[in-house]
């Protein structure tokens, strides 16, 4: 059986591949959404922090002999800490200003971080091997699925859904959501809102770092890995709707699939298809697919 001249079996493979790439989009856009939803900051440094996550994994292995599993914990902590410093020293001064200021600041920070890493480590990337437990693959009949990629899907889905649950379904999440609606009132109830906001930023950034560690064995650990990805992820966020948690998860996975299919039917357009969709969505639903109009 074929669809438009492509065997259906091949399409199953591409669907799965799309989901894997979508997992990265989902994790990154989730962090962006959380940060935007609660801080009103368009965090352009997200790509650079994702890259730092991968580098922390690399350093941990090279300098301290700490492997992949340890890095899954260490990298989010280290980069999250960087995020806290960033928020305390710079971002908190911008909350009362227009979005544009936050965007410019974080964009500048991203350029500085990337520039420093590129200067130090070049642009061709550094090798990072897949952990021994996750090497090899399954033969699914219609495709060869590397174990590591399967792990990426499962793990990121888990992280995404947990995050969604915490924010939408728990008491802590309700404080967070309330604080975005009316910080003064929440403060009056005795909750330390500024600290909560700082920790939220740290958490969003830690998610990016976690995605970076997940990406390290697949791509090279490369100073430019975030810069290449962040523009696409922003398109994902815009399509899903700024600030919508579930929206960014669903859109992330869905666009990964769309991109995967484009690579089969018209590969030349695979790096533009998401932006075409973004343009269409903005025309029809300016608030994004899952966004609420302000």
């Amino acid at each position, binding site marked *: 059986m074929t669809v438009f001249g492509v*065997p259906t079996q*091949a399409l199953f*493979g*591409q669907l799965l*591949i*799309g989901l*894997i*790439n979508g997992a990265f989009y989902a994790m990154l856009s989730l962090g962006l959404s959380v940060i935007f939803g609660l801080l009103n900051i368009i965090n352009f440094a997200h790509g650079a922090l994702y890259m730092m996550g991968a580098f922390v994994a690399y350093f941990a292995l090279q300098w301290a002999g700490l492997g992949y599993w340890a890095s899954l914990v260490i990298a989010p902590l280290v980069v999250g800490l960087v995020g806290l410093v960033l928020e305390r020293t710079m971002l908190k001064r911008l909350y009362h200003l227009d979005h544009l200021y936050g965007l410019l600041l974080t964009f500048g920070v991203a350029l500085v971080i990337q520039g420093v890493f*590129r200067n130090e480590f*070049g*642009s*061709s*990337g*550094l*090798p990072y*091997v*897949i952990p021994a437990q996750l090497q090899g*693959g399954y033969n699914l009949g219609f*495709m*060869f699925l*590397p174990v*590591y*990629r399967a792990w990426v899907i499962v793990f990121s889905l888990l992280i995404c859904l947990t995050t969604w649950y915490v924010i939408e379904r728990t008491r802590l999440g309700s404080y967070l959501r309330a604080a975005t609606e009316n910080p003064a009132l929440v403060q009056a109830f005795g909750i330390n809102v500024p600290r909560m906001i700082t920790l939220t930023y740290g958490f969003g950034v830690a998610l990016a770092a976690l995605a970076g560690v997940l990406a390290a064995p*697949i*791509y*090279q650990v*490369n100073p*430019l*890995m975030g810069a*290449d*990805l962040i523009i696409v992820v922003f398109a994902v966020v815009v399509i899903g709707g700024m600030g919508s948690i579930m929206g960014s998860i669903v859109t992330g996975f869905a666009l990964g699939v769309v991109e*995967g299919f484009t*690579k*089969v039917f018209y*590969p*030349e357009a*695979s*790096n533009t298809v998401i932006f075409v969709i973004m343009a269409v969505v903005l025309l029809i639903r300016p608030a994004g697919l899952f966004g609420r109009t302000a």
Partner: protein
Amino acid sequence: MRIIRALTVLATLLAGVAVAHAQVSDGVIKIGVLNDQSSLYADLTGQGSVLAARMAVEDFGADKKGMKVEIIFADHQNKPDVGSQVARQWYDADKVDVIVDVPNSGVALAVNQITRDKGKAFLVSGAASSDLTGKACSPNTIHWTYDTWALANGTGNAIVKTGGDTWFFLTADYAFGHALERDVEAVVLKNGGKVLGKVRHPLNNQDFSSFLLQAQASKAKIIGLANAGGDTTNSIKQGAEFGIVRGGQNFAGLLVFITDVHALGLPTAQGLIFTETFYWDMNDRTRAFGKKFAERNRGIHPTMIHAGVYSSVLHYLKAVEALKSDDGTKIIAKMKEMPTDDPLFGKGTIRPDGRKIHPAYLFEVKKPSESKGAWDYYKTRTTIPAEQAFRPVDQGDCPLVKK
């Protein structure tokens, strides 16, 4: 007012004196290194090429000879429009005499035309398209280090002859990828092989799994990578993950640089064979250069592109010295007339179509057990003699070649 007029007269006089003294325009030879300073080709060209040009100027002894040489550089961001704009600005406003390097064939073809229009000089080391000495050849351009025909001839031939007779191409979707794919396909077909399919991916692509699945499904014995830099390393790395090699298919890295091998690591890169025209560990002279270069380049050893920049700038300066002029068209003619000789490529010549001729080598990446450490990566499989390494001069359709 009077002071200004006096100054103008003085300046004119001084300028006149300068021109009378030396034929070198404005007394300075200005070399512009135009390449990728920030993206996927930045390690294999980038600042390394600027350093190579600088080392050529030092080794030539420009200071002692009283020649004033200045080197500037710019990032073309792999965009032909940005590259063209820089080239025009350099030639028109900044008095640049010669542009060197220019990886990315798309940008190089644009600069090739601008250089010709302005009557300047262009020494290509980074770009690969064999069209630069074919239908786009120019009296103002020399294509120095390698080209797609040489890569196809070296790697393609070797692979087809050892049984790799069915191919699937993963091609970077721009001038370079297309030219490389075309030249390799010709070699495959000529040797009785078959091309089962091809897919074109955007430049600087991150995830290759979709394309790799298509390559896998084609059942071709050889997956030809008509791409370069980060695109090549990502293809190979992800190919290993998808069990391409274990499944009985093999990669042909059609353009691989030592920085790519370094980035991949030997466990992944071992056994790859490919064609290059330079490796730092070939003889005492190349080793001396490699060591000196790496010390000044964060430990990164020279790629063949860096070596080509060094060699071409050295020959350019020799020609300027001989001609006592830096007129672009005349210099290129002089460079073609003079035999070349330098520590990195040995003795060589430049053909009327602008092709620099020297041997090429088929290298194989060592096993981790064979390597003595970082940057000890290649062993030589075959040396392709200079006269066989490049496309015969009458087959390129270059209008400069009289038939």
